[in-house]
């Protein structure tokens, strides 16, 4: 048993434990302890990875292992990690723990709920560690059903519609991805699904063009890339709190990771030629998402549209192809994952008490519930990019990286993206002003109690994540530095830096 497979074994054991457990209380504690063990495991693996790197390991990916799965079809369960996948795993582990803590009081079908949550987390871990494209796709798809059921059964509002829309649009994305990876399998001459092998192949540019567009669009659907973003607002707002955290925090990052690791990394020539398409869609998503957020009154819709806008930065960073931009994109993925999870968590806490998410119906939350109010403000400030929080560091890095590309087109895209920050400030400050500051308008609200111990621990955990990246970004950059360099070295010819 190698160390990376443990990342999959623990969630499976936890999920089985949940199935066996009889009492709801046991289910909750099993889920929580399993996910905490997983978090420590992730930290341990990262530490081990760093020690290996410091000891002079120079392989592209470390801790490799491979097991036979469908050998006649070249499908092997192969796992390996580099810095980029490690930071994603760390982020996932954090969000999972927080998500379970936040759902502590869920009353309906507890066992099923936590089982599906763990299945969802399993799919994310599997996706980030596998190096075999087929297995990666398996894990990408594994998340579809838990998402559908979590929204459909435990959701609120137009949940049937949102759940179905989400499942179908993500399936559409997966179909594109699958055709793309089939193309990589057959038409690169490699006859292998292993992306490290494919990366060594010299793929004809005609093939690259088709596959790049297919794969980037397919994964883009998962990242809520414009114009395939419409599942995100509906899905996020109908989902129960933990599922929203997972959807925005983790699932959207699967798409970003795929865009970077599969589409861009494996098809560098096409990426240089055609990334302008995705720079355009990303710029539209950033601006459109920000303005759409301004129009929302529902806090969850607000955060969902702002996620579209923030994930636009991820796409923009990846499509810009400079080292700083790619680094920024990875940081933005992690930062947005944690920040948006905290945002959804605090919205969920408010909703649990007030049973409304309309910003103008709330008010004075800080006075009544100082802890929840502060968590909301912290995530809001992180979202608008206040220095000291992770949002600032990552967005700044994306902007700097984008500015390195010369040419009117790139400059315009960068300026547009920067301009969106102003809009972000408007909607965040407005939401905070309406819902958090001010006096308590509704007498009912005076009865509210502040966060419970589980909600507090979730918020503290996520805030820690935000602060670590925000205050010590060098730790983070150091971890992924070698990997972004090796990705970007494939474009050096055109980009120049």
């Amino acid at each position, binding site marked *: 048993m190698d160390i990376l497979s443990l990342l999959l074994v623990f969630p499976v054991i936890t999920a089985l434990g949940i199935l066996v457990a009889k009492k709801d209380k046991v289910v909750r504690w099993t889920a929580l302890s399993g996910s905490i063990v997983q978090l420590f495991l992730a930290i341990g693996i990262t530490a081990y990875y760093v020690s290996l790197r410091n000891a002079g390991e120079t392989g592209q990916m470390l801790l490799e292992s491979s097991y036979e*799965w*469908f050998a006649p*079809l070249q499908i092997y369960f192969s796992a390996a990690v580099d810095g980029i996948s490690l930071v994603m795993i760390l982020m996932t582990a954090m969000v999972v723990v927080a998500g379970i803590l936040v759902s502590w009081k869920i009353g309906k079908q507890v066992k099923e709920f936590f089982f599906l949550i763990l299945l969802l987390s399993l799919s994310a871990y599997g996706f980030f560690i596998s190096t075999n494209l087929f297995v990666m796709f398996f894990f990408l798809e594994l998340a579809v059903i838990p998402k*559908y059921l979590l929204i459909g059964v435990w959701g609120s509002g137009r949940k*049937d519609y949102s759940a179905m829309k989400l499942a179908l649009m993500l399936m559409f994305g997966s*179909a594109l991805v699958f055709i793309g990876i089939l193309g990589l399998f057959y038409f690169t001459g490699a006859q292998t699904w292993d992306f490290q092998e494919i990366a060594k192949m010299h793929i004809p540019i005609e093939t690259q063009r088709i596959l790049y567009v297919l794969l980037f669009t397919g994964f883009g659907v998962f990242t809520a890339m414009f114009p395939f973003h419409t599942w995100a607002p509906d899905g996020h707002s109908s989902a129960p709190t933990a599922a929203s955290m997972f959807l925005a925090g983790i699932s959207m990052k699967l798409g970003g990771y795929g865009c970077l690791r599969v589409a861009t990394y494996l098809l560098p020539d096409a990426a240089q030629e055609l990334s302008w398409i995705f720079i355009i869609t990303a710029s539209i998503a950033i601006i459109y998402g920000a303005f759409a957020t301004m129009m929302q009154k529902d806090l969850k819709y607000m955060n969902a549209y702002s996620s579209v806008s923030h994930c636009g930065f991820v796409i923009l960073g990846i499509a810009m192809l400079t080292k700083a931009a790619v680094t920024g994109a990875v940081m933005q993925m992690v930062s947005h994952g944690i920040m948006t999870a905290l945002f959804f968590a605090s919205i969920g806490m408010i909703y649990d008490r007030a049973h409304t998410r309309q910003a103008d119906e709330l008010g004075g939350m800080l006075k009544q519930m100082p802890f929840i109010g502060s968590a909301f403000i912290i995530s809001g400030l992180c979202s608008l990019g206040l220095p000291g929080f992770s949002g600032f560091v990552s967005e700044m890095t994306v902007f700097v990286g984008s500015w390195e590309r010369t040419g009117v087109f790139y400059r315009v895209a960068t300026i547009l993206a920067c301009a969106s920050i102003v809009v972000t400030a408007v909607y965040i400050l407005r939401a905070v002003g309406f819902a958090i500051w001010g006096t308590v308008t509704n007498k009912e609200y005076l009865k509210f109690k502040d966060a419970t111990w589980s909600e507090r621990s979730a918020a503290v955990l996520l805030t820690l994540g935000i602060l670590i990246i925000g205050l010590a970004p060098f730790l983070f950059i150091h971890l992924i530095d070698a990997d972004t360099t090796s990705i970007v070295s494939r474009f050096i010819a055109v980009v120049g830096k």
Partner: protein
Amino acid sequence: MDIVLMFRFEIILAALILAIFIMSLRGFDTNVKCFLNTMNVLLLLNFIAGWLPLSEGSYFSDFFRTNGLIVLQKNIINLGLLLISLTSYAWLEQSKYRLEFYLLMLSSIFGVYVMLSSGHILMLYLGLEMSTIPIAAMSNFNLKEQRSSEAGIKLILSSAFSTGIMLFGISLLYGAVGNLSFASVIANLHPNVLTLFAFAFILAGFAFKMSIVPFHLWTADVYEGSPIAVTNFLSVISKGSVIFVFLTVLYSLFGGLKEAWLLGISIVSILSMTVGNLFALRQQNAKRFLAFSSIAQVGFVLVGITAASTIGSASVVYFVLIYLLSNIAAFGVISAVADSTGSESLQSFKGLYKSNPFYALIMAVALFSLAGVPPIAGFFGKLFLLTAGMKSGLYVLLGFAGVNLVLSLYNYLRVVKYMFIDDNEAHLAPLNRNRQLTTALYICLIGLIAIGFVTPIYQYIDSLCRF
């Protein structure tokens, strides 16, 4: 001794049929439970006997042949037979004609064996007919229901029509080649107008049996009218076995016309997937729903068939195995629900998870498998078919397959939504469960979860398909 081993499927089946006769003469079938359980045990033994070691070979100047792949196909059919017998226990318990049911079902299977082992087109034709005609009688089993008789008549008429077309194709082929044994057809087949026409007519005949669009019109009506056990048999055994034979016909018999049939198969594949999924969108009757879903599934099988190589035939056999388990599980649950609610409408599945979590979970696993969602085996089955299809580089076909993945997911999620999300005003009481049905459903469940992860299964199929 060798000949006994080689014919053991046929011999055991003939012995079983004979045993049923004797049982009826001795009045053994008056004790319903005893009779049904004995049949199930006998079918289990039949299934086990299929795995005895066996040599390859052919008899009667190549009229009958057998090899590892054919034995595996027969074993898969045997598994289906056993599971169908188990799932239809409750229905047979009430039916007056249980003995006849087994008699007809086993005769049909005998035809399937002959068809699978045939080395000569006449033999193939004989087997195909032998397997179809008893089903027409079986679908007429609800004697008091008009729909059931309608189903029987529709099946016999459409099958007679398709047989006529196929026979015409066979006669053209005879005109072109001069001999109907597989070996000489393979050796003497050259692409020209005559052989192309022969192929087109034979394809049309097979298309009827597999209910490929545009020859699918009988399917929904017959599925709806027949008793659930028979629908199950039609959708699984009869369709699966014709797919197996179709593989041989395409790959070896018409291997020389590959350039021509690639186009034809791609077109009917696109039509089947799309029409099947689009018509399933609004079906409210569970059996009609699965009828259109099975049309779409055959469309996916055809995507895999276009590969015309080891991966093509291995992925098809693998998929049929998974499809068999998923469909039997789905029909098993439908029969349990229909038995207690008296309705075959999908509406009666509403709120099933709250009242009957076991059935709802099995149904969900079966539907996810049909939709191709991991970690259920159908995911691997379906994606291997697509992987095989990509081998020939038919992008348009793959594009349509991708769109249909989305469409079919909608169809199946609709039922999942009924079961897990919607509430039922009229609360379903816990449904009856008998041990036989439960056993069958557990076998399907375990199979559907394990097949994707027990790697030797695919490797075994792959090793048999190397030619």
